[in-house]
């Protein structure tokens, strides 16, 4: 919705063929939660020219390719300001994710991308930012926060408010980053868990929409970015509207089954829009006009 597709690199894959992945190596695997079904993979490009060709902005995704098993699309969790690597946080769900979870550092895999549109960075400039997220959908917002907090970018944005909720403290991802952001003056980070965790906990207790209503971030000159499970989104949008956010100022990210990631294979469409190229980032105003096929 912001950067048009043609402005970005037209080649999503090696040698100008968008179907062929760039070779990358898994440099590090971090288990993100107590349930151990979320792992973050740090990927390093094998070729410098691939790394520089892979120019992205927060909000985009990529197809992670495990030869012999297949490809799956994941939101990019790293920020372009973290130049040396890509991060993907992967939930153990199907065949590709199982193969990834069974991998050890050092394994060579592939990445195709960057794919899709970005958060509306032009529009976000000069605005207060309200980030609302629940569960493991936090990935691209980690990217967005890291990007905005980078010294060269921070002054472009006003106040940054972030609310991140999970079922229990053990399910919150990116512990290191969260700790750093909590101490930072540049962002007001609020953590929440669904119910009393029965352990020392200095964050909020309650479901994300309720905590959001309680914290009531200001809507004036602000844009909200919301990522989370469908049920959370459904109850969060009315709260944001109560707080005064216009439909255009509520930014969401969609997911649909994908294969090609480049608008050809025809399966991820919602009406005439393809999530892989016209999305995944849509405003609530845009989504309202589309049929509910996601």
């Amino acid at each position, binding site marked *: 919705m912001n950067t048009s597709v043609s402005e970005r690199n037209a080649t999503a894959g090696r040698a100008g063929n968008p179907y062929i992945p760039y070779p990358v190596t898994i440099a590090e695997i971090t288990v993100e939660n107590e349930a151990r079904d979320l792992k973050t993979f740090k990927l390093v490009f094998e070729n410098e020219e691939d790394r520089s060709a892979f120019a992205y902005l927060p909000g985009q995704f990529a197809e992670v390719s495990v030869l012999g098993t297949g490809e799956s699309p994941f939101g990019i969790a790293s920020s372009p300001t973290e130049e040396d690597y890509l991060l993907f946080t992967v939930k153990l769900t199907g*065949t590709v994710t*199982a*193969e990834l979870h*069974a991998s050890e550092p050092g394994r060579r895999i592939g990445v195709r991308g960057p794919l899709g549109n970005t958060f509306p960075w032009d529009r976000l400039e000069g605005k207060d930012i309200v980030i609302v997220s629940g569960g493991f959908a936090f990935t691209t917002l980690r990217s967005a926060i890291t990007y905005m907090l980078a010294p060269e970018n921070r002054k472009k944005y006003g106040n940054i408010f972030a609310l991140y909720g999970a079922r229990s403290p053990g399910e919150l991802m990116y512990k290191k980053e969260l700790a750093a952001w909590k101490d930072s003056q540049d962002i007001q980070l609020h953590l929440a868990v669904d119910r009393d965790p029965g352990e020392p906990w200095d964050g909020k207790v309650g479901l994300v929409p309720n905590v959001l209503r309680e914290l009531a971030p200001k809507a004036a000159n602000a844009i909200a970015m919301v990522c989370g499970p469908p049920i959370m989104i459904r109850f969060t949008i009315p709260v944001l509207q109560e707080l005064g956010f216009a439909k255009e100022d509520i930014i969401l990210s969609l997911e649909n089954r994908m294969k090609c990631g480049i608008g050809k294979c025809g399966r991820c469409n919602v009406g005439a829009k393809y999530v892989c190229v016209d999305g995944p980032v849509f405003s609530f105003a845009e989504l309202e006009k589309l049929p509910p096929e996601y």
Partner: protein
Amino acid sequence: MSQSAPQHIHAEELATVEPGGEWHPKIVAFLCNWCSYAGADLAGVSRLQYGPNVRIIRVPCSARVNPQFIMKALQNGADGVLVSGCHPGDCHYISGNLVARRKFTLTKRFLEFFGIEPERVQFSWVSASEGGRFSELMNRVIADVKRVGPARRLVKNLP
């Protein structure tokens, strides 16, 4: 996932041509845990000789063998498939092999109807005490498959 059985019915791993140049068929044998697998084990500890190109897949009962397993083995390049369970009447689960027998009767005839050589897919009964019978059976199957040569039909053409 990588642990799943069919993905691992890969006969490719087996050496097919020995240094001497003689062709050795790849045989996948599905053996029931209670009789035939124990029979194979007995053949082993009794040092009875049978061809080396057999890969045994242990199943809880011959009734566990779905014709899809056999197809998958053939598709992945097995030259022969053997399924063996307890003798009728001796099933650990009372009647598993009797239900299996019906399935196998049809499988055998059906595959031959399509033009799959009868030697390729064989069924037998071997008890836990029949180490000798097991080695004879294996030698018989290997000889049969050798006679018809390397599998071509149904083998998936992959790089």
